[in-house]
């Protein structure tokens, strides 16, 4: 950890990384990845193509290319995990006891796993007609 006091010098402090440190670092790593991934997805689907031209055939055509499926799996994996962990961080600002925090964390983890599985199955199995 680096701290910069007002008088200018830098001090290195060794802190053993715990679970929250790693979660925090992954928030930042995923954020850097999400900027190109999400912005391009929104630009393409909402602005360039537009919702009026999107239907089952469009999704089928898009997922006929393996690269787009990989892209969508990455989107699903990184955005939703970033969002759910973000929600956990926000809720921890308002919940101050260890026990309810743990309950919230487990509920969010479960919700994340179920919805990610639903989305993941759809991307892998593809459009059913």
């Amino acid at each position, binding site marked *: 950890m680096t701290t910069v006091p007002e008088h200018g010098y830098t001090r290195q402090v060794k802190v053993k990384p715990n679970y929250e440190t790693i979660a925090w670092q992954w928030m930042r790593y995923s954020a850097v990845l999400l900027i190109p991934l999400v912005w391009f997805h*929104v630009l393409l689907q909402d602005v360039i193509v537009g919702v009026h031209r999107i239907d*089952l055939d469009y999704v089928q055509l898009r997922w006929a290319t393996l690269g787009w499926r990989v892209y969508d799996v990455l989107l699903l994996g990184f955005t939703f995990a970033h969002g759910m962990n*973000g*929600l956990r961080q*926000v809720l921890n600002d*308002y919940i101050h006891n260890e026990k309810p925090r743990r309950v919230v964390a487990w509920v969010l983890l479960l919700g994340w796993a179920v919805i*990610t599985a639903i989305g993941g199955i*759809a991307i892998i199995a593809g459009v059913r*007609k």
Partner: protein
Amino acid sequence: MSAFKTTLTGYARYRGREGQISFLLHRITGLGVLLFLTIHILDTATVYFFPSLYAHAIDIYRTTLFGVGEMGLIFCVIFHGVNGLRIAFADWFPNMKLWRITTERKSVLFTLAISVVLWLPTVGVMGFNILKHNYGLFGG
């Protein structure tokens, strides 16, 4: 619940100016995007689980009300990204002293300006699409 009330009144009363506004916007835009994302994963998953429902979901997306909401969503996505970059930059380059209060105030306003500039063209295109497809303008 009282902690939540204290938080809300604290947000309203505390005068942290640009830094506080930026914190609140980051939080609200993040939660907003997460809400939409949850719905979006589930409605897209209907292409496999209930394909006949997908057209119905898309019909809702095509309404004017949802379209305007989507413009707001795009602002959330842009602002959350640009502001996240600002925060990461301030951490990565401590020599630039971006966490100093005067520099921070300027960089928050700069972040808002960039977000609006990136957002306006998308509003133009999406607004054009809504007017074209929902109101028959521009030969739609």
